[in-house]
């Protein structure tokens, strides 16, 4: 009965139904969406990880990589060190010498060896290098499947990865003598962690640009990739597993679980993730891990040499050695041996476990079904508002003409010939036009040289202040260019803008949950932006204050704020972003400039129009 009367109440009170209720619902969506995310680290909502793919059998085999192999490791390392520290040679001679040495070691071990040169240009910088790689053909396989071991010369933090490369060389010689491999093993030595694997994997699938050489030597379909990083000159304490791919794509959870299980269970080395060195499994630490993971996923950049594999649906992780402890290169080698044995067992591509997950501890995660509603609720709040505004323009006209009873008959007649239609043309063109305008900063930030990035950011900041105000002035006063807008058109502009925002974000949530959530959160004020009414002084003050606050949430301000907070220069971030766009195929900028920025501008226009 109470429900019935509530519905009756709503129908008799259109202001409540069309103006107040949608705002409440939107707010509710936002609050529940955020609260949902905060609940995830609790035991009741997250799950313990488990291995889904039985064929993996992690840690079920004995790893034999010990003893005399350590002497080989030391020998290779000495040989490489001698070339690297040769003072008489210049840089290019050292690179060539090292490359020749790597080739001779691989070939002596009986592997087929090949090289690949590549060059990338981005934001006025040139990145060039040479990949070397060698293949063990599987004694028990038919060369239709392969596993990749990558050792970049420079780690993701740009440190010399001498131990990692030496370990790869030693493992190559060691693996070659085993007869149990049923998949080919490819050893890839790249000059750095940013470009090398990208050039190699693109060429492996014949998708490389002209500046990258094709591969002279190939194997079968790649089943998985492991990146080895050991930049330390002392024994390490734990393994740091990095798993984020380009555009927030993640490797199959089974691969991560296998690595954790082998490192922790079989070898007794601790495994960390997301740079959480002292994880005590408390709520705070779980949440912190999850938020760090979401930030990396949302930004969508390559976090290591493994990231480039993900777009080709090849599951890959990076193993980084961290801290000072008791574990040596042999322990790392055994871990990798055991991981390779597990991957070698696979009968089909990793598919059993999750591809969409948020990790909050090395053994705790939430899967997409549990976390997706939070981003969908955030995106849904915009859609609710858009639908409500559309209904409002049809059912609840802002200013109802007051009629006396005598006029009613004539008004009835006028109704039939004069249909109340929405004025769609201007709102539609404005919303579409501003979204297309987003292509301009997108193009500029991906095509100019890096030294102008800081300046351009401030220019965009200025544009963000001026453009909404001038558009608002034109729209609300006409200024001789057009007729002043009626309230309905403001509602329609907001409705279309929020509809596009909502549908872009809900689509994005299925591809990159974190990015959708972050952008959704930053856009939440836009649901409540409207042309204010009321007496001049209060209205001017509120809208002025609102505009200042809104400008604090504009894309360039957020960028500057984050750069200031993390103490990284804007130029570095934007150079990396342009590099991501040019080389990795990163899509984050498209979302920022063609989804977030236009929606933000329209919010600014709506709020700004209350000044005029």
């Amino acid at each position, binding site marked *: 009965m109470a429900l019935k009367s509530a519905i009756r109440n709503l129908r008799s009170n259109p202001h409540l139904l069309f103006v107040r209720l949608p705002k409440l619902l939107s707010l509710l969506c936002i609050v529940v969406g955020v609260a949902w995310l905060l609940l995830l680290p609790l035991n009741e909502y997250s799950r313990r990880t488990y291995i889904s793919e039985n064929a993996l059998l992690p840690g079920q085999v004995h790893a034999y990589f010990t003893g005399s192999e350590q002497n080989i490791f030391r020998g290779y390392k000495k040989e490489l060190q001698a070339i690297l520290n040769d003072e008489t040679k210049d840089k290019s001679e050292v690179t060539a010498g090292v490359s020749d040495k790597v080739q001779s070691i691989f070939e002596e071990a009986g592997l087929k060896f090949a090289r690949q040169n590549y060059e990338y240009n981005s934001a006025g910088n040139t990145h060039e290098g040479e990949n070397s790689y060698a293949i063990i053909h599987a004694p028990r396989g038919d060369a239709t499947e392969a596993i990749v071991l990558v050792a970049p010369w420079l780690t993701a933090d740009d440190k010399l990865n001498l131990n990692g490369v030496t370990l790869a060389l030693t493992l190559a010689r060691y693996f070659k003598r085993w007869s149990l491999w049923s998949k080919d093993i490819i050893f890839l030595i790249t000059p750095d962690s940013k470009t090398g694997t990208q050039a190699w994997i693109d060429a492996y699938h014949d998708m490389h640009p002209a500046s990258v050489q094709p591969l002279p030597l190939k194997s079968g379909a790649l089943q998985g990739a492991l990146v080895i990083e050991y930049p330390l000159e002392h024994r390490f304490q734990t393994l740091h597993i990095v798993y984020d791919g380009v555009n927030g*794509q993640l490797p199959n959870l089974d691969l991560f679980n296998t690595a954790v299980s082998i490192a922790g269970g079989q070898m007794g080395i601790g495994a960390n993730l997301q740079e959480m060195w002292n994880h005590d499994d408390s709520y705070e630490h779980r949440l912190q891990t999850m938020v760090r993971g979401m930030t990396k996923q949302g930004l969508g950049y390559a976090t290591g040499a493994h990231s480039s594999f993900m*777009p080709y*649906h090849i599951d890959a992780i990076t193993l980084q050695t961290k801290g000072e402890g008791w574990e040596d290169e042999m322990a790392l080698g055994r871990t990798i041996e055991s991981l390779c044995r597990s991957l070698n067992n696979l009968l089909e*591509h990793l*598919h059993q476990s999750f*591809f*969409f997950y948020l990790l909050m501890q090395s053994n705790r995660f939430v899967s997409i079904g549990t976390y997706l509603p939070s981003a969908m609720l955030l995106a849904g709040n915009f859609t609710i508002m858009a*639908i409500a505004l*559309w*209904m409002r323009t*049809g*059912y609840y006209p802002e200013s109802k003409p007051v009629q006396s009873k005598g006029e009613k008959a004539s008004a009835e007649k006028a*109704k*039939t*010939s004069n*249909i*109340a*239609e*929405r004025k769609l043309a201007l709102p539609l063109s404005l919303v579409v036009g501003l979204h297309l305008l987003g292509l301009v900063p997108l193009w500029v930030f991906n095509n100019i040289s890096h030294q102008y990035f800081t300046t351009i950011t401030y220019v965009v900041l200025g544009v963000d202040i001026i453009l909404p105000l001038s558009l608002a002035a034109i729209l609300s006063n006409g200024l001789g260019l057009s007729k002043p807008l009626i309230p309905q058109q403001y509602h329609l502009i907001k409705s279309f803008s929020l*509809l*596009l925002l909502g*549908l*872009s974000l*809900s*689509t994005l949530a*299925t*591809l990159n949950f974190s990015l959708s959530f972050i952008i959704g959160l930053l856009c939440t004020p836009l649901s409540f932006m409207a042309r204010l009414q009321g007496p001049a002084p209060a209205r001017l003050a509120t809208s002025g204050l609102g505009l200042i606050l809104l400008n604090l949430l504009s894309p360039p301000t957020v960028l500057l704020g984050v750069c200031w907070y993390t103490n990284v220069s804007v130029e570095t971030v934007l150079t990396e972003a342009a590099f991501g766009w040019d080389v990795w195929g990163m899509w984050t900028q498209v979302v920022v400039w063609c989804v977030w920025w236009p929606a933000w501008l329209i919010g600014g226009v709506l709020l700004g129009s209350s000044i005029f």
Partner: protein
Amino acid sequence: MIDRKFVVFGAAFVLRLLLICLFPSLPDLLTGRVEVSTPVNSFKRHAKSSPLPIAVFYFLVDLLNAYALLKISESGQSIKSRLHTAVRQHVRWDGVSVAAWFLFNPFTIATCLARSTSVFTTSGILFAVSNAVGGNSINAMLALGFASYLSLYPALLFIPLVLLCYDRRAQEPNAPKVALYVVQHAGLLFASIAGLLGLSCLITGNFWEFMSATYGFHLLVPDLTPNVGLWWYFFIEMFDSFREFFLGVFWLHLASYVGGLTARFHRQPLFVITSLLGVFAIFKPYPSISDASLFFAVLPLYRHLFPLMRYTFFAVSAILYSSLLGPAFYHLWIYAGSGNANFFYAITLVWSLGISILLADTVFAALRDEWEQQNPDQKGAEVRQV
């Protein structure tokens, strides 16, 4: 003062040219999309040749289609036919706006850039209609024959089209009997198709092989590559023993709309064609976005029905959602490997739902329009957009 027509057509041409010059990889990207290319209209399955002249040729075909649309709009048949006059005659767009709506529709542009052969079928249909409203019934039948020869299904448009021709003919003196008129034109249509088939037979040599590779392909649906339609998933899931039966059911279902719609809207044959184009966009065996773009192209002819439509916002939202989610889910399924076929199929259902709502709403509006015309006293009792 420059003619608006030239501005619109010129701008449409320049926009297409700009798109392929600025994004040279775009045509190949679109050609590879399942939403655009189906086994029966894919450019890749036909020929590979030098890109720019071919692309410009496709642009010109698009402009010709727009021109045909402009002619249809200017004839005013959608508003005032022989037996029916719309209530809200003054609510209309002129021919140039209708052509612009077609030329700047992103779906049309995508189809054109993807060099899909659907644009020729579109030409055939639009020219058939424009000739029919122009009173040139012979050319109309030849154009329909061309479209049917290319894609088979336009032959279903014969009855409403011949009615449209007859409407035009009946306004002139000495109108022939309907039955005779229909038989004559059916003969003409068959002759034109037979002529074209004869030519193809001369070129290919083997008549039956040619027939089974072309019309057999349309009728028996052997290629179940995913597309935006409803057939592929259904036929993948089906046991082979039921295949023939359901092929019959699906085709019968598609064809049955012709009779029903023609009977109900016999006073507005152009509207029958419009709604049938919507039906084809949903229910034909290999639909692509080009079929939807043709339906969206003829809808503005019925601008006077828009005030009577109730669910445009939801239909447009559903279409927008599915146009974004479709490629995303296809990516998850095929490239990322983290989704599966159900993801994409679910979205094609939403897409079809969107077009269905739009179609049903248009039909409702047309019925309401006829009803208001017959009951002038009930006019505009409660007319609102939801």
